[in-house]
């Protein structure tokens, strides 16, 4: 291991980093629904670093489900994209870190989000744009929530991307059973019907997530449905 003056952060540090935003190191399932999948992506899968945020050949991660971004900010801070000190001002007027991320303000954030259903179409365009420039190696990842799949714009995007064979495109669905109307397995089935490769895994199991994230899917886009604890319907805003 190389020794640097800068502190490196591990998975075990994430609750404390999130605590700098929430004021509590204990977090319910809703706040951490994306945490494990995000960590595995940034720690082991995505080929992007703070030094490469403008590299045309970097992998892209688009957070489409912008609600409850504490886990995202914690991972970006842990990986050095943004200073850990920024976490303290979360949501304040002078902070670049809002309750929905803004790509113009947050280093390493590929898109701003908050309004649901925008990330997957943007990711389709990103994959098309990379391919048009001969950049066929970088991968595009977009994270959506299971209830976000209610939005028709996602259906437009997934129904196009499959037949178009956008192999560079990857969707990560965090499924905490928060959609009011859904059928078991419905999400993966919809993607598969549109020609995607699909894996459904335990969203807390790092080895299973890694395996699903890196599964080959020649000629097709790939979706990983990561199942986590059902959302607490206590009525608190996320």
């Amino acid at each position, binding site marked *: 291991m190389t020794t640097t003056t800068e502190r490196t952060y591990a998975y075990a540090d994430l609750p404390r980093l999130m605590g700098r935003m929430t004021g509590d190191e204990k977090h319910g399932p809703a706040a951490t629904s994306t945490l494990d999948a995000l960590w595995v992506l940034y720690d082991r899968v995505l080929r992007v670093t703070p030094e490469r945020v403008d590299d*045309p050949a970097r992998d*892209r991660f688009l957070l489409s489900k912008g609600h409850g971004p504490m886990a995202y900010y914690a991972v970006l801070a842990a990986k050095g994209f943004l200073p850990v000190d920024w976490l303290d001002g979360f949501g304040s007027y002078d902070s670049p870190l809002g309750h929905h991320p*803004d*790509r*113009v303000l947050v280093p390493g954030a*590929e*898109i*701003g989000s908050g*309004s649901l*259903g*925008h990330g*997957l*179409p*943007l*990711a*389709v*365009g*990103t*994959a*098309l*744009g*990379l*391919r*048009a*420039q001969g*950049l066929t190696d970088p991968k595009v990842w977009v994270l959506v929530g299971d209830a976000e799949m209610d939005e*028709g*714009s996602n259906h*437009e*995007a997934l*129904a*196009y991307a499959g037949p178009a064979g956008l192999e560079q495109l990857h969707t990560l669905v965090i499924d905490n059973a928060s959609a009011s109307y859904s059928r078991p397995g419905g999400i993966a089935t919809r993607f598969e019907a549109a020609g995607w490769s699909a894996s459904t895994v335990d969203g807390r199991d790092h080895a299973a997530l890694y395996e699903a994230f890196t599964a080959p899917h020649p000629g097709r886009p790939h979706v990983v449905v990561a199942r986590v604890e059902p959302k607490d319907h206590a009525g608190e805003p996320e």
Partner: protein
Amino acid sequence: METMRDRFAPVMARLLDEDPRVAVVLAEIGKDAFEKTAHAHPDRVINVGIREQLLVGAGAGLALTGLRPVVHTFASFLVERPFEQIKLDFGHQDMGGVLVSAAASFDWPEGGFTHMSPGDVALLDTLDDWAVHVPGHPDEAETLLRHAVAPNTGSDGKAYVRLSTQGNAEAMPVDGEHFLTVREGARGVVVAVGPLLDQVLAATEGLEVTVLYATTVRPFDGAGLRRAAGAATADVVLVEPYLTGTSVAAANDALVDVPHRVLGLGVGRRELRRYGRVDEHVRAHGLDAGSLRERISRFLG
């Protein structure tokens, strides 16, 4: 007769050849005209099917990778239906792109209200920093398309180009920025936008008014209007081929330091519920030369 839209695909074919940053995104509408071009540039002529939210979102996604997207369909499906995609995927993401519409306010009256978009420019006015071009002739459409896409200049701005089957007999030397002075008179200033110039010239024959020709309405050439109003009288009539009054606020802002009057003429807000021909709709909205002459004369007094 060649339409502005007939010119669109050939101009884009040349821009695609000239600039590797340029990409065209379609949603079925207009794809036939791009068939040959799509063979030459299969990765940069993209048809996403009948999916207008994806049309705009994917266009902005191309921009995220550094391309210059040119996104095309009918105005009602380009600006109105996926309006939030325009607001967020281009505006909030801070991305540039060019939206090119067809069918305008009532280019296809037989098609009815679903294919009419008189409110497109007013809607874009709720957003920041969109240039709006309204050509009145296929040659002007070519000039303004090239200006909006601006190959090889690194332009990353947001621009809307509103193509129409309606227009004027002769092209004018438009530049993508300024109003042109077509006629000078002392009694007032009439601003004719895009396809309505010929009607306005016929309507104001002998009225001793200045006629300005506007094909780029955003940013609004306030300096040009102030100059004309200063030389004539600050009684201003705006004749616009989209929703009545769309540019009244812009004209008022331009003339804030001088006493002035502004009359906005354009397409009425009330749904007509008529099919028929374009000239019948022009007349129904009071935009034919005879109706315009009467309304302008009454305003000038």
